[in-house]
Each structure stands twice: as structure tokens, then as C-alpha cells.
């Protein structure tokens, strides 16, 4: 039990002393998860909107596929991305293996179905009366879509928060695609895995506390947006 208390003390020390390996891991985590969250929102929001807003044949099947993708294991995504960006793979020439960009690609695949599925659900949840009212008020198509999007802004925010939480905490993709390279692709989660492997539990717990703090700050700023 000592190492839990030691972990809290260590976390404080690491952050206050400006320990470079901790801070580069924090920075790498922030960069890569923010990047993948934005990419997944960029792709997932329109997809989710199209799926939720329009009725078309195969919609149900598409939803099932999307919901299945929610369960994609991170180690499998990591392996698939590795196969593609390894020098022997089809995208090998881009030199993405062992880079943060590579990790971001994998995490985007992880977060995309989350954003798309939650967006689709919230759009589907819009009162059909709203659309009718808008039409009867003589609103154009563009206006209707804009109003619908505005109505579900908190749902989209929830999608972003969920996606961010997922990419911030995943370890499979970062480990396999990033290679856990010190000062470069070592993220907070892969650092925790490493410290635990080394039997340095206090260090692992310290980094875990750092990660939770990041999540807390991100959620705090998003809830601030909500109040505005």
C-alpha cells in the first residue's frame, strides 16, 4: 500500500520539478489526442449527421456497423495501422511508423465511430415537430440543418468529450504504432505501462494521477464552454 501514497507524492514532485521526461510525455499525449479528436470530429460529425438526419435504405445496417466499430479493440487498430505504415506496408513510404502522426491516425480510427454514433443518435432524437415547425415557418433547407445542428450542440459536445476521454486513455495504439520512444512518442499511458513493467508502481501511479488531472482540466474547460 505504501506505493499508493508514494505515488501521490511523486506525482506532485514530477510536475512541480518540471521533470523533462514527464512533461514531454504529457505534451505528446496532449498533442496527439487533440489532433485525433479534431480529425475524428471533422469526419465523424458530418457522417453522423447524414446517418441521423436522412432516411435511406441500409440505414439500420449502417448503424449496426457503426455500433460494432465502437467495440474495436485498440490493440487491433494498432496492429492494423502498423501493417499499413510499416515500411513493407502500402503506406510505408510516408515514414509514419514511430511518429505521433502515426498514433494520431490510429486514434482517429478509434474515435471516429464514437463521434459518428453519438451525433447520429442525438440528431435522431430531435423532435420531429421542430422540423415541421421550421418548414411551416418557411425556413429553407440550409436553415433547417443549421437549426438542427444548433439544437444538438450539447450532444456534439458530449461526443467530443467521450472521444477525447477514449483517445487520451488508450494504450494499445500508442504502444504498437508509437513504439514508446522516450522524449518522442512516449505518451503518459505508455509511460505508465513501462513503469509498471519495471515494477516502479509509485511512478506509474504518479503518471496516472497526471493523466486524470489532464482529463479533469479538459472537461472543466468544456463545461465552461457549455455555460457560456
Amino acid at each position, binding site marked *: 500500500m505504501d506505493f499508493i501514497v508514494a505515488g501521490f507524492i511523486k506525482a506532485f514532485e514530477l510536475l512541480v520539478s518540471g521533470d523533462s521526461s514527464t512533461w514531454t510525455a504529457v505534451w505528446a499525449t*496532449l*498533442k*496527439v489526442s*487533440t*489532433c485525433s479528436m*479534431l480529425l475524428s470530429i471533422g469526419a465523424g460529425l458530418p457522417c453522423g449527421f447524414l446517418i441521423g438526419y436522412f432516411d435511406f435504405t441500409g440505414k439500420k445496417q449502417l448503424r449496426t456497423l457503426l455500433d460494432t466499430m465502437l467495440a474495436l479493440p485498440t490493440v487491433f487498430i494498432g496492429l492494423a495501422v502498423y501493417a499499413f505504415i*510499416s*515500411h*513493407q506496408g502500402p503506406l*510505408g513510404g510516408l515514414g509514419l*511508423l*514511430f511518429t*505521433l*502522426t502515426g498514433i*494520431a491516425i490510429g486514434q482517429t480510427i478509434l474515435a471516429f465511430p464514437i463521434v459518428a454514433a453519438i451525433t447520429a443518435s442525438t440528431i435522431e432524437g430531435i423532435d420531429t415537430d421542430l422540423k415541421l415547425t421550421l418548414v411551416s415557418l418557411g425556413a429553407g433547407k440550409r436553415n433547417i440543418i443549421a437549426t438542427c445542428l444548433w439544437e444538438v450542440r450539447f450532444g456534439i459536445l458530449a461526443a467530443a468529450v467521450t472521444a477525447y476521454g477514449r483517445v487520451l486513455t488508450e494504450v494499445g495504439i500508442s504502444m504498437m504504432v508509437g*513504439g*514508446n*520512444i*522516450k522524449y*518522442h512518442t512516449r505518451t503518459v499511458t505508455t509511460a505508465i505501462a513501462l513503469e*509498471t*513493467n*519495471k*515494477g*516502479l508502481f509509485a511512478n506509474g501511479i504518479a503518471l496516472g494521477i497526471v493523466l486524470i488531472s489532464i482529463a479533469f482540466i479538459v472537461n472543466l*474547460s468544456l463545461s465552461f*464552454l457549455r455555460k*457560456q
Partner: protein
Amino acid sequence: MNKKKIFLSILAALLVMILAINAQAQNKNLMMATTTSTDNTGLLDYLIPHFEKETGIALKWTATGTGKALKLGQNCDVDVLLVHAPPAEKKYIEKGYGKDRRQVMYNDFVIIGPESDPAGIKGKSISDALNAVKNKQAMFMSRGDDSGTNKKEKLLWENAGISIPDKEKWYVQTGQGMLATINVAQERNGYTMTDRGTYIKYQSQKGGNAPLKVLVEGDKILLNQYSVLTLDPKNCPNAKYDLAIQFSNWMASQNAQNLIKEFRLLGKELFIPNAK
């Protein structure tokens, strides 16, 4: 419109972050795959800054088992290897994946276990010890990850006339690095085989009073040779062969060899330089 301003400034900040991802300088970078023992012991953290200072080459490494490290080289995902499985390395060169092999340092493998020594292996020869473990069905932790250590361990079982106890209850394959496996052995009060460097690191973590002790050592077959391997440019034309050779030469230089010799924990040498 305060809301819009806040939103836009957040967006701008995020964009800057994304751009910063790819802004790292790409000149004179060398990527190495190595084993967990050179990384977990802290040797590379100690050694590589000297290399970078003297040559101006930035060396990055990923630490994994020797099996995967060789595979990463075969796939041209790295430029150079620092590994410890001589038979596999020689085959690797024969197959045309590796080019030059340079021995740089060694230590030895030891069998460690709880002080109570339930199978009574202390001081026995390696083959007798493994037979005793098998007969007593004492817990034995294996890396189980095709790393250099794992390859050696399998060879030792074979030499002792025992087929790999793959499915036995007392034979635990952790699938993890060396330090992690030692920690599993400690938790389960079992035996394991480790390189001495990692064992000393474990001892120093436990403040010099480690529950697991060295029980079998000194057999010639337990020698653990580390070598730098460059990749054959025919197989990997994009691998930085020149820089890899520079690294290989530097590791064999008098200066680096002295640094390796001076790397100690609890006053003990972890790796013994032996470049020719």
C-alpha cells in the same frame, strides 16, 4: 459575441498544436530497435547522450524483445539493432536481412528464485537444476515472448533433455519484459532466468535486499553476448546504413567501451565490454 471569440481562440490554439506535431527536425536521425534489458537497466539513457554529443546523430530507440526487434529490422522499420541472440543473428545475416554484426558487450544469464529454494537447485548445474524444477513442479516464469532471453531459455530446456513445458501449470509464460517477469516471479514465489544486468537493476530497486536470489550461475552456456547489427542495404535501401555503421563503430570505440565498463548499480558492473 464573447462566446465566438473564445471558441475561435481555442480552435486557433488547437491548430497550432497540430502543426507543431510535424515540425520536428528530421536531419541525422537514427532509429534503433533493442532489447528490454539494455533499456530497463538504464544503460541506454546513460550511454546515448554521449553518442549524440560526439557524433551529432540523434538516436531514438524502441525497446522490445530480440524476436520483434529482428522483425522490425527485416521490415525496414528501424535503421540499426542492438540485440542478444547470436544464433538468430547469424541466421538473420545469412538470410540477407542483416549486414555487419559487431560484438560490443556481454554479461551472463542466471537462474534466480526464492531464498527458500523449493526445488533445491542452488549450486547445481544448469541441466540438473531445470530437471529438479520439472520434477518438483516448482513455479517457473518464462518470458514467453521469443526475446533473446526466451530463445536462450528454450535452448537450455532442450539441452537438459526436457521438451518445452508449454502447457504445464507450473510453467508461466508472462509475455512481458525482463523486469516485469522478475516481478511476477517474486509475486508467485517462483524461479526465472534473467540476464545479470536486469537482475542487478531489480536488486537496486529493492534497496539491495531482493527476495529473489541468484541460485544457478557460471555455466559457459549462460554467456549473454550483445551485438550491434546493421541492416543489409540490399533489403532496406532506405535504412540509414552510414549512420548505423557510425553507431556500430562508436559502440566499439575505446571511449564507449570505457563508459559501458563504468556503468554500475550497487557497485556492480551490469555489462562487460568486449568489442574487438
